């Protein structure tokens, strides 16, 4: 496989076809992509463009039907067995019978961390997502935004350098979303993780990413890959700069181009 050593995710001509009762559905075709260590990569596109499917292929939750993909130089299954990534789902998926700190402890228990180590990591990750003091609460006692932050803390608790996030803020309102985006950037800067982030929102993608992957549906494919020219340090105000708007414009063009054929 041709992947350079710094590549965290490397896909070559990747395809995935679901067999449904209505016949085969091409969820992904001919995806070529490299995600470098420390990148923040956003996947943007309309429903059915395969962005979530691609994330699930990286996570070994779906098997590709053609092409090749490497995660940390391994197959996705090996990477999963090595616990190479943390996955944040669309919903927080916290276990309702566990307190927030017990939820964060869940992967640590499964991976066999000692009790003292668990305690230290719970405290550290709660602080990282600004939830210190909420460890003893049950999920239903927290707002939606706080629950999603808890689920990010859960994904950060163990030593995975790769964070896969599937529209984690999709169900939250604009104000909470802005706030969490800002926090996520700080967290990314502090932890040096590589992040793959699926989103519907153009401003969110441009604001967060070092690389934006624009995708289009039927068949799911990559139509444009945009390297962001924005600095890594990004105050919220950067979204009004001409540079930001230009990148946003290019993303919008890419999305429109991908859509034109079925009209």
């Amino acid at each position, binding site marked *: 496989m041709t992947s350079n050593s710094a590549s965290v995710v490397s896909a070559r001509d990747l395809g995935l076809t679901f067999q449904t009762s209505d016949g085969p559905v091409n969820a992904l075709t001919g995806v070529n992509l490299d995600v470098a260590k420390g990148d923040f990569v956003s996947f943007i596109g309309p429903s059915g463009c395969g962005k979530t499917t691609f994330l699930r292929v990286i*996570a070994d939750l779906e098997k590709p039907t053609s092409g090749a993909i490497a995660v940390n130089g391994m197959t996705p299954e090996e990477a999963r067995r090595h616990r190479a990534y943390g996955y944040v789902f669309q919903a927080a998926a916290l*276990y309702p019978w*566990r307190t927030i700190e017990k939820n964060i402890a869940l992967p640590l228990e499964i991976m066999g961390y000692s009790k003292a180590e668990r305690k230290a990591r719970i405290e550290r990750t709660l602080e990282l997502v600004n939830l210190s003091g909420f460890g003893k609460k049950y999920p239903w006692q927290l707002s939606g935004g706080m629950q999603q932050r808890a689920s990010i803390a859960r994904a950060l608790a163990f030593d995975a350098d790769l964070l896969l996030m599937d529209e984690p803020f999709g169900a939250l309102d604009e104000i909470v979303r802005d706030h969490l985006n800002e926090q996520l950037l700080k967290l990314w800067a502090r932890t040096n993780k590589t992040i793959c982030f699926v989103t519907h929102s153009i401003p969110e993608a441009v604001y967060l990413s070092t690389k934006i992957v624009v995708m289009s549906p039927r068949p799911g494919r990559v139509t444009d890959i945009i390297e962001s020219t924005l600095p890594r340090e990004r105050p919220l105000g950067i979204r009004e700069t001409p540079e930001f708007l230009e990148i946003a414009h290019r993303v919008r063009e890419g999305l429109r181009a991908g859509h034109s054929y079925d009209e």
Partner: protein
Amino acid sequence: MREESFFRDKLLPISTVVLILIAIWYVAAIFLNAPFERDTAARAGSEIGFSEIVRNTMAQERPVLPAPHQVVAEIWDTTVNKAITSKRSLIYHAWITLSATLVGFGIGAALGVLLAVGIVHNRAMDRSLMPWVIASQTIPILAIAPMIIVVLNAVGIAGLLPKALISTYLSFFPVVVGMVKGLRSPETIQLDLMHTYNASSAQTFWKLRWPSSMPYLFTSLKVAVAISLVGAIVGELPTGAVAGLGARLLAGSYYGQTVQIWAALFMAAALAAVLVMIVGLAHTAVLKRMGAKA
């Protein structure tokens, strides 16, 4: 929201219904027992007035339908006035039935959970076992109970265990059905999460499937404990009616002791209510420990 009052929201509606039922019962007792009084009077060649009929129907020795106070008196007499060790004590008989019920319920619950775990984790067991589990409940228990007693007796097992096994036969079913549903209740996203952690099936079971199934477990245990009691009573019928609530029912019907039958019936009902209540309390306690909303 108005404040909840014990008298207005609990006691009043329940006691109203109880009073209505008792009234209906008295009226029914008069109607059902009156023909006997009229026959007796006719045979003696005398006339009998309505008020006398009413008075007599309240105190027959073998009434078609005993009046409520007769049943209460019988229960009082056979619980408070008799030593617990006495064969005439209803508490003694209730304990015999209860012990078989509890043993049968314990085995049935354990068996039900084990079968459910097998069915959920093994495709072959899912395909092969579930139809048999369902078929087992289509056989009337009254038909199979004497067989179990006779067969076990032949191999030297008598007493509590055969009755308990009949309880087991009835009670494992709701537990299997409830637990299969409960162990399959985790959402895809919760299972995917376990998959991303590379969790073993044992870890997925103990950390996800088992806690998720708790509400289902207790709901089916409530059904199971009630039918365990039914199983134990049915199991006592073909044993020659030596001891237990089932024996009291059978002996009562042999000798036309309707008051005794009703007393045993009420004892069985009270026992079932207490058992279901205990499971209900355990349910609440477990859910509270699992952080359910108050």
